[in-house]
């Protein structure tokens, strides 16, 4: 084996640390059907590389990370770590959490010591190793502080120190920078990459879950892009830019653009023979992500204005509005669903009605929105039809909830109904009374 094992150039020649083979994860719904969140995922992690899992929320990337961490068991397929199946949290795999997950009643030092104590290390050793990790990650002087006394960035440093102190072979990172402000996230990322580049970190490789495209391009050697519902790897992109990488470098921009294109392209293959519900807007079983009408009109207006004039590059508009993928994509997709905009090849383009919407006054906007809502969103049309048919012109929420549960889990059904309620209210297509938990056609006069 090569001495310089953290060097990227040799990564491909080494035996894999982690081998994920056709992993699936599904949950059983109350009616006995399976809900698939992760479908046939393969992944190999070799020493010396940082691999990114990139996808929207609901793409199952966090579920995959938890399966690798041994926190959840996959429903099918294999997760092998060093050739042995993962059947619970493994000793050489440590995790950094999105919400830090620090114990508020333990000091920085005690939090960091925790992992070693659990392994039964002698106290002297535990203490010196923990202090070293704290030192390395730039927390010197904060040993006796409690997490609540620290800023978000410092808290996540504790999260890193706590994971590094156990000298894991694989460091799992679950959106570790997404709870931080932009500047802090940038600093922490750069510090981490510096230590990684200098070979100072006691780890062999990193698996990073993120929905931030720039972050993924900046940090990773390889990216796996996930689709949603169900989560599958739709493409893999190798990133061989040398470190340090600069966001303004044309090659960096080209890669970011390429990832956007991959993420907005329609799923390839199996268009036939699968449930129609998978494609947006073709059935009442489509999971809707809640996007407020303010955001919808906000994005329409932004795209219609110069310099875009109705046709914008997604990375460019994301940067102009300082929104990341997880915020921007649901809005863009909702617009696509409502046929107010089209998305193709990393670009967003207003439709004729989209442009009309922007020019219209409030009442006219609502009328246009209502027309599109009832035409292109089958669930909205369904709700309206049921209300029209009933003599009382009202129907309990549970009626639609039960129907949705045939297609999705409880949480998604709840979210979808929330979206329909909010859109229906904006369009004045129907009303909803939260106290009675019922839809109706009455509008308060």
């Amino acid at each position, binding site marked *: 084996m090569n001495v310089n094992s953290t060097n990227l150039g040799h990564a491909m020649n080494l035996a894999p640390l982690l081998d994920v083979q056709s992993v699936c994860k599904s949950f059983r719904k109350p009616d006995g059907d399976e809900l698939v969140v992760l479908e046939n995922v393969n992944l190999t992690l070799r020493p010396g590389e940082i691999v990114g899992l990139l996808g929207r929320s609901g793409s199952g990337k966090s579920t995959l990370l938890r399966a690798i961490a041994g926190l959840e*068991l996959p429903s099918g397929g294999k997760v092998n770590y060093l050739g042995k199946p993962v059947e619970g949290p493994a000793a050489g795999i440590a995790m950094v*959490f999105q919400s830090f997950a620090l*114990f508020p009643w*333990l000091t920085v030092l005690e939090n960091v010591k*925790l992992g070693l104590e659990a392994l039964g290390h002698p*106290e002297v050793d535990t203490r010196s190793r923990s202090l070293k990790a704290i030192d390395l990650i730039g927390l010197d002087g904060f040993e006796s502080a409690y997490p609540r006394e620290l800023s978000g960035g410092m808290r996540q440093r504790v999260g890193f120190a706590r994971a590094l102190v156990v000298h894991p072979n694989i460091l799992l990172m679950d959106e570790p920078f997404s709870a931080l402000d932009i500047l802090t996230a940038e600093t922490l990322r750069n510090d981490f990459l510096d230590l990684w580049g200098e070979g100072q970190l006691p780890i062999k490789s990193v698996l990073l879950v993120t929905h931030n495209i720039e972050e993924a391009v900046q940090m990773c050697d390889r990216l796996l892009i996930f689709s949603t519902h169900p989560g599958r790897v739709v493409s893999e992109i190798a990133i061989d830019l040398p470190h340090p990488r600069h966001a303004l470098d044309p090659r960096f921009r080209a890669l970011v653009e390429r990832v956007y294109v991959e993420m907005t392209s329609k799923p390839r293959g199996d268009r036939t023979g699968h449930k129609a519900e998978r494609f947006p807007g073709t059935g009442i079983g489509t999971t809707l992500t809640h996007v407020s009408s303010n955001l919808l009109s906000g994005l329409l207006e932004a795209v219609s204005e110069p310099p875009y004039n109705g046709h914008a590059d997604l990375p460019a508009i994301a940067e102009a509005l300082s929104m990341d993928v997880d915020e921007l994509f649901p809005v863009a997709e909702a617009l696509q669903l409502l046929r107010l905009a089209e998305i193709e090849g990393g670009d967003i383009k207003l439709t004729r009605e989209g442009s009309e919407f922007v020019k219209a006054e409030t009442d006219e906007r609502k009328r246009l929105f209502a027309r599109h809502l009832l035409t292109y969103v089958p669930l909205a049309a369904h709700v309206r039809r049921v209300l029209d048919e009933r003599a009382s012109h009202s129907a309990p929420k549970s009626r639609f909830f039960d129907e949705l549960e045939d297609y999705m889990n409880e949480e998604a059904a709840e979210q979808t109904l929330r979206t329909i309620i909010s859109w229906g209210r904006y369009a004045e297509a129907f009303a909803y009374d939260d106290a009675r938990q019922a839809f109706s056609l009455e509008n308060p006069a």
Partner: protein
Amino acid sequence: MRLDRLPTLVLRNRFVPGGWDVLAFVLVFAFLIYVAGAAHGLTGSLSMLEATPISLAPSALVGYAARTALRMLIAMLASLLFTFTYATLAAKSRRAEIVLVPLLDILQSLPILGFSITIVFFLSLTPGRVAGAEMACVFLIFTSQAWNMAFSFYHSLRSIPHELDEAARSFRLSPWMRFWRLEVPFAMPPLIWNMMMSMSGGWFFVVAAEAIDLGNTKVTLPGVGSYVALAIEQRNLGAIGWAIAAMFVVILIFDQLLFRPLIGGADWFRLEQEAGLMPSNSWALTMMRRSRFLGVVSRLFVSILNIGFKARGQVVVRPRDLPRNPGQRLGDFLWYALIALIGVIALVKAVQFVFTEITLAEVGHVVGLGFLTFLRVGILIAIASAIWVPIGVYVGLRPRVANIVQPIAQFLAAFPVNLIYPIVVSGIVLGKLNPDIWLSPLMILGTQWYILFNVIVGASAIPPDMRYAGQNFHVRGWLWWKRIALPAVFPFYVTGAITASGGSWNASVVSEVAEWGQERLQASGLGAYISHATGTGDFRRTVVGIVVMALFVVVLNRVFWKPLYARAERKFRMS
């Protein structure tokens, strides 16, 4: 040069006791001496106890108060032990959960005096000795403390934040380490709050617990409770006054030496800073933190825990969502069948036991009495709400007033109702009033404060912006109450009212009957029925009484309080 600075600098690195150490030493040794003295009485025989009757001399109260306080402390420790085991088992084992949680719900709604039927069992453990009677007494106090603590701990265990649970599992904490490093610290703040409530509850029933009277079995253990019982029997108002003073001192000591340090410490356990009314400055906590002597003691405790951590070092932690295999399903089935069988047998036995002497008509009569008590509780809660909600809002919006009112209300909540008997009984007799009406206020005497507490907390949690908005739009008078104050405190009020209602049912046993010397007043109600049954040692009627009461409380909770609470949570909770 200032000399007073020098010593601390010079001495810092050596183990020389400082001022806080002296204080800690004095307190710790005083405690040890007092425990030893109080424990001495345990070995005696019951006949010896009868030979030394309770004295009403104020000087005797010092010893009595110490004995009573020690009993409550032991009961509190037992409650903690019960909490840590029972609630943990309920939260961790699916099979245990389906039995333990409903059982706890019922235990919680049983009137505490109903547990006095267990006294005979304890007395029979050590025939002729004081130890058995002491155990019975501590057990009775325990039954007034343990249930809500266990519930609070169970709820905390079930609501451990997801990410902390994942962190604990991914770092492979052993169950023992997980318990002390994650579960106990997380559950601490609500548990301490419940311990304080339990302590108040314990005082409320200490009179009944110390002066055991089961018809032909009479045991009087030396303590404040027995002192009060004797003072009532002899109509000695002066002694009642001394007892109140002694109680006040003991409550103050518990507050200063036990609860304030705990609250101060628990503040560190909170996930986020929440609006809380509990005082967090504590000189005793400062003493514990600064005293090196106590530092050594606490380090010793921690290292004992650490031995536990190391001993269980390597543990394979399994993921949570393992699918259930057929073997487990069969086990589940057998388990449910077993529980059903035990339930049926218990039901048959109980019915046989009760109906050998009691007719169905009498049971119907008892249910009727239950409705009378139900009526009383309902009216009293309504009246108490009308009084305390406005006052609570007024106080809660003024932090300075709240700081004064809060400890007073806490003391009043602990006030045993028996101490009010003289006033109430004399008043009713002199004014020739109807005891069915005028004994009723006793029921809510100790429990109304929970409404006040919670409304104060709710009002102080109203965001300033909301108050400013009200002022800005000139929202005043009834509109202000209707649109701002009442909705804002409603969820808190419901929490308080649930506690007050449950407590009032419980208190009815000591409130529907009042004695002052030979004067004995009785209202008709379920409480008086139970009180009479235990007083004459009639087990069957005691059982019927407490079962009917438990049914009333459980049904009321299910059909009224819980839905109301859920609604309040959904509609009015901010954020």
